């Protein structure tokens, strides 16, 4: 088994010393990486952990010497691959290093492969460049690599295009490509972040097996402390362009010396953290003193036999049937309760969320506050719309960059003709306070805010019409863990004080566990399991649910299970 003591005394494969990188902006140079130093021993996995903007990716791109020339520049420090300092190499020599000595895998398997080139051409490319030889021998090697990453029918895959493969398969292809020239160092930048948890578990397991087989030293960049705990021999924690702490995985998790590291680990939602309890934790003093009783019996949202079809269209030869994205979904949601809708990508959970708000055509029964939605005329929808609001995933894309925050929050009220200008300004101030911001930010524009602050603004906007139901679709998925925890707490607090009902859509089992009273697990457009959160998490009735729970990496290196399980 892997040595977890962090004792790697052999000469390092890669040593980074005092690496400093500046971003070139209109207002002069800005330091983005400040004297970062670390060593990577032969055969070890070093995780670079940290939140967005900490400099993880800049570090890896510096090692590859792939920083965008116009905007980022290495100002000092050295990057030694064995004896050679990469910072002094010419571009031609550096090209020989890339792909042969150091290879890289990226986050987005969907966009990291060239869409107009076959898998075969892309796989053969590094082999032909670095090892020469003829096409036939390169092809044979490509096939061996596809076999090594456990892709079925490797020969057929060579002729396929990226869009014909699933996300997990594409990431396997990326790994095959990266390892094809047996590099000394593999840099994996968030390699599983874009994947479903079950696929993530498979890819992590594969990476671990291949490390044993190829003996590659790995730098694994991730924001996910669960993945860190699962994979790392040693961990380097980064923050604001500095390396704040480095040590063995066990030390970092069990005896972190830096406050930031402790906060980072504490903020990670752990699956099983709510075991033995019903419902989400109480966050306000009132709720802690007297838990809210279910006063209303009338459901805020009632859904019966909901069906959504995509892609149906008229064609010359009759009607083309579409694909059933949601297939007979039924559930109820009462005031002050949260239904967690969980499932993998393509399970139909987001589609359900949109249909429930009448944003896409559907069949079946949906009623909000007792009013059926079937009437699609905009006017008839308006009073119902006030009752139900949505918070989206990407706080950067869901605010108009040319509209002040105050105007964005006031807009729903203006549309629904609520109050006059000064009433609305008062309400905006009140809402901003409500979500933990100060009223004076109303005159500022979205770009002046961080992701977490923007999501607070989106929540304020959703609250402006005093809705009874909020559909939150992956609302915290784009946020860093520490910010995520705070936004989730805010949502819990608002639920306790306003009696909001949440339809909480997420792929993240730990977040679902924290937020939900009830959980519905979706797979292939159907709800496969539905019940109180405690029952679903502690005693799942379906194998599918159990697989989803088991695939979540636990942020505790002593409880590794993904890579170990057969």
């Amino acid at each position: 088994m892997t040595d977890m003591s962090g004792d790697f005394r052999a000469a390092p494969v890669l040593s980074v010393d005092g690496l400093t990188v500046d971003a070139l902006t209109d207002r002069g140079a800005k330091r983005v990486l400040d004297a970062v130093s670390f060593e990577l021993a032969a055969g070890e996995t070093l995780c670079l952990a940290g939140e967005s903007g900490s400099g993880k990716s800049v570090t890896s791109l510096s090692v590859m010497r792939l920083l965008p020339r116009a905007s980022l520049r290495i100002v000092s420090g050295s990057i030694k691959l064995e004896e050679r300092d990469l910072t002094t190499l010419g571009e031609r020599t550096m090209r020989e290093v890339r792909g042969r000595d150091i290879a890289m895998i990226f986050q987005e398997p969907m966009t990291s492969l060239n869409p107009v080139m076959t898998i075969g051409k892309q796989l053969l490319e590094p082999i032909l460049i670095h090892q020469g030889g003829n096409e036939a021998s390169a092809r044979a090697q490509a096939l061996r690599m596809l076999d090594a990453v456990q892709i079925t029918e490797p020969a057929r895959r060579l002729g396929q295009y990226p869009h014909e493969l699933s996300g997990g398969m594409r990431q396997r292809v990326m790994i095959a490509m990266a390892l094809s020239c047996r590099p000394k160092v593999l840099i994996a930048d968030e390699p599983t972040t874009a994947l479903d948890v079950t696929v993530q578990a498979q890819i992590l397991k594969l990476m671990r097996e291949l490390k044993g087989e190829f003996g590659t030293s790995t730098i694994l960049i991730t924001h996910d402390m669960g993945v860190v705990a699962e994979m790392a021999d040693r961990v380097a924690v980064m923050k604001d362009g500095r390396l704040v702490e480095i040590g063995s995985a066990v030390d970092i998790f069990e005896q972190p010396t830096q406050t930031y590291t402790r906060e980072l680990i504490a903020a990670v939602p752990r699956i099983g953290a709510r075991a033995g309890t019903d419902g989400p934790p109480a966050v306000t003093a009132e709720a802690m003193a007297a838990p809210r009783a279910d006063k209303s019996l009338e459901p805020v949202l009632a859904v019966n036999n909901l069906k959504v079809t995509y892609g149906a269209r008229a064609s010359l030869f009759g009607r083309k049937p579409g694909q059933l994205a949601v297939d007979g979904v039924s559930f109820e949601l009462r005031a002050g309760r949260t239904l967690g809708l969980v499932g993998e990508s393509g399970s139909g959970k987001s589609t359900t969320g949109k249909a429930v708000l009448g944003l896409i055509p559907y069949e079946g029964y949906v009623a909000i506050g007792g009013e059926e939605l079937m009437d699609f005329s905009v006017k008839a929808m308006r009073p119902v719309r006030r009752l139900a609001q949505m918070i989206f995933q990407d706080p950067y894309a869901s605010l108009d960059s040319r509209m002040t925050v105050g105007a964005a929050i006031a807009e729903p009220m203006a549309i629904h003709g609520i109050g006059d200008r000064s009433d609305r300004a008062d309400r905006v101030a009140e809402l901003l306070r409500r979500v933990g911001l100060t009223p004076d930010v109303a005159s500022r524009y979205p770009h002046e805010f961080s992701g977490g602050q923007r999501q607070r603004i989106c929540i304020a906007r959703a609250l402006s019409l005093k809705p009874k139901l909020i559909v939150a679709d992956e609302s915290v998925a784009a946020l860093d863990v520490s910010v995520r925890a705070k936004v989730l707490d805010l949502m819990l607090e608002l639920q306790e004080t306003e009696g909001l009902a949440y339809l909480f859509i997420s792929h993240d089992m730990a977040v679902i566990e924290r937020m939900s009273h009830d959980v519905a697990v979706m797979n292939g457009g159907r709800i496969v399991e539905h019940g109180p959160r405690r029952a679903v998490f502690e005693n799942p009735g379906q194998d599918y649910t159990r697989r989803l729970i088991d695939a979540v990496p636990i942020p505790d290196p002593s409880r590794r299970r993904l890579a170990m399980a057969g």
Partner: protein
Amino acid sequence: MIELILRRFGGALMILFGVAAITFVLLYALPADPAVQLAGRSATAQTVANIRHELGLDQPLIVQFVHYLGNLVQGDLGRSYTQKTEVMTLILARLPATLILMVSGILVEVAIGLTLGTIAALNRGGAVDRLVMTVSFIGVSAPQFVVALLLLYVFAATLQWFPMAGFGGFSHVVLPALTLGVLGAGWYARMVRSAMIDVLNQDYIRTARAKGVAERTVILRHAVPNALLPIVAMIGIDIGQFMGGVVVVEAVYGWPGIGQLAWQAIQQVDIPIIMGVTLISSLAIVTGNLIADLVAPLIDPRIRAR
């Protein structure tokens, strides 16, 4: 794929019908009377009336139109008023010259546009980029007849590298093709530049570089085919633009194509020829779009899958 072609074919028929109807109405709304034009200034009212009857111009517009459509379905574009020949024959005789001009114009346009656009994208924000963008802006803004006269003055009159006008060997094509292509080239340079900048920021370009692929190969093999996707669709649409330019260019260079035919016909109010050229041009545009639609899946496997 077959459905796409059938669908497009149906669409093409609708478009041609629409074009025929609109052109027909517009031409007969003209203040110029073809019969007067044919009879000459000194002709008597009776002569004019006779000519009008002979040409069928005295019948109601709708009857004339139905009559025209009836002939059109059989591939008959009518007879020219002035040249007393089948319009189809006239057009077919001149079509090859126009096709040569158009194809060479498109080649000039795409070659210059692609090269300049790519160079600008690779030097984004630098002096070369600004120079290319300025030049392309001038290219886009310059009226075609000005470009034509300028090229004639420099390369034909002063340097005498190319003939002034006429139809013949390769040297005759160069200046008209340049004139026709320069405007589009500026346009394409801008399009290609933004498409290339977009593509160069894609993850798969970074993947290619991380594999150790040489920069030249990254550009030519990985970036250009992806940047071409939006351009191919544009070329199809662009053929319409081109037809307008062809009339001017053929007139200036005395190029014996259908543009020149149309130019003469307009002056003589020779309605059947104007109608014929308009319809053939529309057909060319529709065909161009169809070809673009058929070529796109050859470059982009994602479209093939649909």
